[in-house]
């Protein structure tokens, strides 16, 4: 079994690793090192920082993330259907409609339960 075909991949890998290192080194070499207070502040755009960032993200983010996860991934079934839409015809359309109704049902449930309310 020959693995010579992987050599271009290896070259890519090496270049990909070297490129950021080299650019960072060049930048370090040329840039002036002058620091002052406003330059070191977060955001670096003039907005005053009035409190420390919160350590933990609020649990609401998890709820949104979970909902996103489900609806994002389930739509993976739409792609093969869309590609083969003509071949599948009415049967495929009805199947996909049922599938989407089930998904929308879950969405309505989450909505009614207030999972999408932010406050």
């Amino acid at each position, binding site marked *: 079994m020959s693995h010579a075909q992987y050599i271009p991949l290896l070259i890519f890998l090496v270049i990909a690793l070297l490129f950021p290192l080299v650019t960072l080194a060049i930048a370090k070499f040329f840039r002036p090192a002058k620091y002052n207070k406003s330059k070191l502040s977060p955001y670096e755009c003039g907005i005053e920082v009035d409190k420390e960032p919160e350590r933990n993200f609020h649990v609401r983010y998890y709820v949104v993330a979970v909902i996103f996860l489900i609806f994002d991934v389930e739509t993976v079934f739409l792609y093969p259907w869309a590609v083969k839409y003509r*071949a599948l015809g009415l*049967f*495929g359309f009805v199947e996909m409609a049922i599938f989407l109704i089930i998904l929308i*049902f879950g969405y309505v*449930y989450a909505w*009614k*339960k207030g999972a999408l309310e932010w406050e």
Partner: protein
Amino acid sequence: MNVTVNMTALMPLIILFAGISLTALMGTMKDSVKRLAGLVASISVVFAFWWVMERILPAIGTAAMESQSGMLTYSYYSVFLSGIVLITAVAAFALSEHYLLEEDFSHPEFYAILLASITGMMVMLNTSNFVNIFIGLELLSIPLYASVAYLRYKPESVEGGLKYFILGAIASGFLAYGIAMIYGASGSLDFITIVKTVKTDSLFRLGLLFILMGLAFKAAAVPFHMWAPDAYEGAATPVTAFMSIAPKAVAIGVLIRILYSVFPQMVDYWREAVLVLSILTVIVGNFAAIVQQSVKRMLAYSSISHAGYLLMGIVAYSVEGVSGILFYLAGYMLINTGAFGVLSLLKIGDDDFVSYDDIRGIGYRYPLLGIFMSVFMFSLAGIPATVGFMGKFYVFKALIHANYMSLALVGIGGSLVSVYYYLRVVVHMYMKENPEERKFNLNFLSMTVLAICSVLVIAAGLFPAKIADIANVAARFMN
């Protein structure tokens, strides 16, 4: 493209899905509607049961009823197991009605989650395609993880759920990997096509081993049992009743179907593996049950040991063995629903009183409850004149006929050990004094379920012929 849809075959799943949708929607409505969720869920299960028995059963002959090119396959065998699952579900719903009200945490979503799990079991049982085996297993497991952690304000419950989740995910990974290997070796996911190509080369062996491990996890066979005691103890007691029966019946049932009808050529290979698993399961389950301080946890270990007896039946590799297992499962369903049902009544507010110390004197204070519990304990121990004895009798008889005398002796030895810890419950109920007086609310619905179970345990123990005949027919027509 022409696709014919067999609505008769799909209907049980559609009914159950309608039940899921309705109960989940009820969760967004007002309280007076919410209270009906248990009823709606039970109706949908009963309706699905009726449909399977009245519409699908007559359509099955000696050959199974196939639709969607084998994606849904109903045989006498799978219908028998589906019946067990659906009956368990109704009993669990009836028990949880009281339990959740007492807990003051009754939400319609609880029923939706369990219904989703039941749908998964139906999918997994009634198929002859590995894709549906995998999807069914996931649809079975994922809601169960959630239902174990349902009492989300109790750390034990959430901890049990998380442990079950992590180990269950390993199990589904194993099963999926095994299916991938079988697919690679045979080029198909359909049972009937695979049977024709099965050889004993290494890819098949690897695949079979992984599938066996995945299903052994779900059946809680040693050494894949670590999750079971924690999940059983943490879950709400009616959920424990449900998950000690239904997923076990499904895992064992599907394991038998895969081993017997897809890999019959490899019998010498898998027989050894199942043999070792069954001996370990019986020994570890029984001895770990002895040292427990909580009756609920003891019953969890006891259900592990019962998985061991069921696995022993698989080793026999005969119709007699399968029919013994099916009879055992039917009896086990009655006994375990009852035993956990009694425990689910020992509850005041948030607190469960299910340790050996807590059940002292129950037999005097609540005579009916004491009698029920004694019946279930005697039956689990395998005392004659109960269904538990007949189940063990059929399984061990099949083993002896298959020339596995020593394995049968291990099983009988295990049952003798188990008599100790089952009778300990009875002793605590009748022979010890309890310094604390507790007033339990004996809910009528739950008591009815317990009464039906205990009467049937005795009746089926005295007159087992009818169930044994049905189990025999189911065992003979697997495909």
